[in-house]
């Protein structure tokens, strides 16, 4: 089974593919586009991936080009000689590189939100409604209560991206207390007839991501207005300032925001939001 020429060719192709992956990941890290795919807490792991990849590629290339034929051997893991099989396998490895380099990097948007099911409640609160069933001690509510205490005195409640889902959760949990308060938040435009009333409303959404885009859950807040809102593009990024108005819809109580000012903004560098272990700490750090 030892055919030096075939082994050399395999090694060379592999070296190129590994190098391609290394470059692609280095590019993603450099340009910040990595945040379209994974959560920042995974970033330290992925940042250093190009190093072993390049070392592997160099070793393989060295073997392929300069190793004596006698020392090349694939008896442990025979390399395929079938052209079709090889094309298929290496094509598979090239696919992510092609997808990554040919298509523009883009964050998840309305389409994915529709597939995953847009929630009109902070995903962190998803279990809240089942409180009667699960009589568990409730350290989480304490955290939300502490956060709510800090939010309440603010003249305009700014929903910080760092603690987005926590802030929405805290307001939702104590929605009656927050009725009529001013709030400012940003997100992408999501329009779906099932959730909103004709032209006067839309959903301002965000994706909550834990590790990578595969585990993202979309959620948002309904934005209402007196006049019909026109000229909103799907997936456009907006900053909304308005008044909190709790409402009951389809048997569920939820917060809506009566818009006073809408302004288009640039897409943020980290388009998703991430759950935070200690939202109080983060709040105190931001507002120090």
């Amino acid at each position: 089974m030892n055919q030096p020429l075939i082994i050399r060719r395999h090694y060379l192709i592999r070296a190129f593919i590994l190098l391609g992956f290394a470059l692609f990941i280095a590019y993603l890290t450099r340009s910040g586009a990595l945040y379209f795919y994974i959560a920042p807490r995974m970033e330290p792991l992925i940042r250093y991936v190009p190093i072993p990849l390049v070392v592997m590629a160099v070793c393989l290339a060295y073997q392929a080009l300069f190793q004596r034929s006698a020392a090349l051997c694939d008896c442990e893991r025979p390399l395929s000689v079938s052209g079709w099989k090889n094309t298929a396998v290496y094509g598979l490895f090239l696919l992510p590189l092609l997808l990554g380099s040919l298509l523009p990097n883009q964050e998840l948007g309305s389409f994915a939100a529709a597939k995953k099911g847009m929630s009109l409640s902070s995903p962190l609160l998803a279990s809240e409604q089942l409180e009667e069933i699960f009589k568990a001690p409730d350290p989480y509510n304490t955290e939300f209560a502490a956060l709510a205490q800090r939010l309440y005195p603010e003249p305009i409640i700014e929903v910080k991206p760092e603690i987005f889902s926590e802030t929405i959760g805290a307001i939702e949990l104590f929605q009656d207390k927050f009725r009529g308060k001013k709030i400012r938040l940003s997100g992408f435009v999501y329009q779906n007839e099932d959730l909103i009333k004709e032209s006067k409303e839309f959903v301002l959404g965000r994706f909550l991501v834990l590790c990578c885009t595969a585990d993202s859950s979309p959620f948002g807040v309904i934005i209402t207005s007196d006049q019909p809102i026109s000229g909103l593009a799907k997936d456009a990024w907006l900053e909304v300032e308005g008044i909190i108005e709790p409402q009951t819809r389809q048997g569920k109580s939820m917060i809506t925001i009566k818009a006073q000012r809408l302004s288009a903004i640039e897409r943020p560098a980290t388009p998703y939001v991430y759950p935070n272990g200690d939202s109080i700490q983060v709040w105190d750090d931001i507002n120090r």
Partner: protein
Amino acid sequence: MNKIPVPRLLPMLLPAAFALACLTVVSPALLRQVPMDEVQTFKTSFLGILLEALPFVLVGAILSSLMHLFVSEETLRRWMPKHPVPGILFACVLGLVFPVCECGMIPLIRRMIQKGMPVYMAVVFILSGPILNPVVFSATYMAFRLYPEMVYARMGLAFAVAAAIGAILYLYWKDNPLKHSLARGATQDSNGQGHTPAHGSNKLTAVFIHAADEVFEMGKYLLIGCLLTAGIQAFIAREHLADIGSGPVSAYLFMMGFAFVLSLCSTSDAFVASTFLQTFSGGSLLAFLVFGPMLDFKNMLMLLSVFRTKFVLLLTFLISALVFTGAVLVGTLWL
């Protein structure tokens, strides 16, 4: 060896390059025909899963390669407990000190089996490692903050299922479960005969060459798994899936199938599960949380690359049956 037809890739490069050039020129027109939303969502999910798994695959490949070259069978045998009961317990807690995702675990395990680790211990490690570790514990705790029983139920059931499968394999499985080609490699190694793999004179180079071999070996299964998973996430709406499993028993089956199809990493699946709290019973979510890390699309393909099909099928059956029974029991009695 006679002449084997050599694949002629080189002559194909020119037409391929030409085709690519044409494609780039006409691509704006063509691209407008393609449903971009689907493609973009698919791409974002696909690369997300792949990028997340990649560091773990690399760590697994390099560790496995180091073990191959530097740890002898005797050393490994000295570490391993001889008796099955401490053996199974040892494998269960191995995840505590070695928290890698399942993607990194499979190449490592293969190497350890080749070096003489008993099969039952290896399987216990594959099954329990992705769940019984501190990272997953804290992630699950965070996702189910209102519902801490779930965390303990998850850890407990995973331990019980892994240990039970270990015991069953210890009692009933005597063959070598590795694929034929791989098993042969192992015997050659242990006899110290055959062709000594002299990948260069330098051992350090050899580590990386071996690791690259592992990456390509595992990588193709990982990639197929990622493709399927991303496809399902991009093209099938979650509500349609959720409609299937609304009955009390079908909920369990559905959540297990869902876990299999989604192929999430065990550190993040708890979060996805918690979004189903309103729709599904606690027991069925437990089934999701325990079944997913033990068996899913991605890692079943990776298992198939290492183990014989018969063995993987047996494992699939055992995991499904035990997780189902366990989750139903815990779900009705406790949660």
